[in-house]
């Protein structure tokens, strides 16, 4: 075997080893991420929002939102912390250690998130934006309701006007101190101090998409594509010129 041939074989062996090692590593580490990764630094558009009551133009394609449930053990009278999320990841709740309080006979507590089919009427001047979710907890095995001191919720909201998250305590709605996710991600978080219902709200009559925002969105999407096409053409022309010059 020539020296060059041997070097090529060694490179091939190294490359093969790297391919296998990289693929195994990627398969193992993929489990850490909630969704399939993109390797371009691009953001995947959100999946369609699942409405309890979809707007008329989305009723044919709408999928009903899902519930979520998790059971936490009671150890030494304290409930371990953890999270609950709906299957479609539109509502998430995080409970700290000992945030949920149960009676002495409880062995575990079942925490649920359910989309509310008929939410209570919203306060005057406000409108619901997306779904209302009910956060609840019951002791096991008695089935008695559990109490909670505080927990964090994150709700996804659909496109359109959104201002803040609201909480319904059984009698009235309360506006929550709301933290929106960065980079335009349609998620907002807040802290609840009791089980109950929560949803996203917007001032009644708030503007959704205007012709300007629609045009801006189109420019953002197709402008980038146009830019890339123009640049691609320039690159191809440059390459052709370079090859002609070389010939």
């Amino acid at each position, binding site marked *: 075997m020539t020296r060059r041939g041997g070097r090529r074989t*060694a*490179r*091939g062996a*190294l*490359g*093969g*080893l*790297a*391919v*296998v*090692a*990289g*693929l*195994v*590593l*990627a*398969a193992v*580490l*993929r*489990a*850490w*991420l909630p*969704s*399939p*990764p*993109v*390797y*371009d*630094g*691009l*953001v*995947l*558009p959100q*999946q*369609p929002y699942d409405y309890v009551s979809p707007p008329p133009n989305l009723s044919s394609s709408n*999928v009903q939102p899902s519930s979520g449930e998790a059971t936490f053990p009671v150890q030494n009278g304290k409930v371990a912390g953890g999270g609950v999320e709906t299957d479609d990841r539109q509502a998430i709740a995080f409970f700290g250690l000992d945030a949920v309080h149960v009676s002495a006979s409880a062995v575990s507590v079942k925490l649920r998130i359910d989309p509310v089919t008929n939410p209570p009427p919203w306060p005057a001047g406000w409108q619901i934006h997306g779904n209302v979710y009910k956060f609840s907890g019951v002791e096991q095995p008695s089935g008695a309701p559990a109490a909670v001191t505080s927990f964090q919720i994150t709700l996804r909201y659909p496109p359109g006007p959104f201002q803040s998250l609201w909480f319904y305590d059984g009698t009235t709605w309360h506006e929550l101190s709301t933290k929106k996710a960065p*980079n335009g991600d349609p998620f907002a978080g807040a802290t609840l101090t009791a089980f109950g219902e929560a949803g996203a709200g917007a001032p009644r009559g708030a503007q959704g998409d205007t012709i300007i925002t629609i045009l801006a969105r189109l*420019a*953002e*999407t*197709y*402008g*980038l*594509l146009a*830019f*890339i096409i123009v*640049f*691609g053409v*320039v*690159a191809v022309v*440059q*390459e052709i010129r*370079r090859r002609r010059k*070389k010939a």
Partner: protein
Amino acid sequence: MISVAVQPRAARLTLLVLLTAATRAALVSLGEALSTGVFVACLGAIVLLEARPAVGEKGWSMRWSLVAGGVVGAVLVAPSVGNGLSGRALSDFWVWGSVAAVVAALEEIVIRGWLQPSWSAERGPVAGLMVAAAVFAVIHLPRYGIVALPLDFGVGLAIGGLRLVSGRVLPCAVAHVVADWGAWFLA
């Protein structure tokens, strides 16, 4: 005095790629289109300015390159198949998919096409493979966070290995694009 005995091209290319990624990260707050557009423009500029004719490297045929790239891309996507489909509309895919393909191809031309061989020529193939995988992971850090860094490094190793085995960039670009497109369709 500390002297870094690295030849200029590999280091310069690495710096350019990292600066490009940093510029993109700095512009994210101004919008996805602008930051990605500038990123594409900078990678394109690197492609134009750093172009060198390939010398003495025999690569796989076009057919084998496409097959190998498709297989590696499919294996990268495979762990997500069990989660079902995402529900994203096919009609929205074409624009996103085109942009993803162009960005992926440019990244592969610059990183696997030039950066990896440059480091390989100067420091050996292991160094080339490792530096290229590290750069690939780091440039995506601002967007996906530290949690995705090891995964991106692993994917960089796999695609870099494909470059070494095949002697071409085409299978790397195909694998990269297939993996990206899979993310659109899978939940």
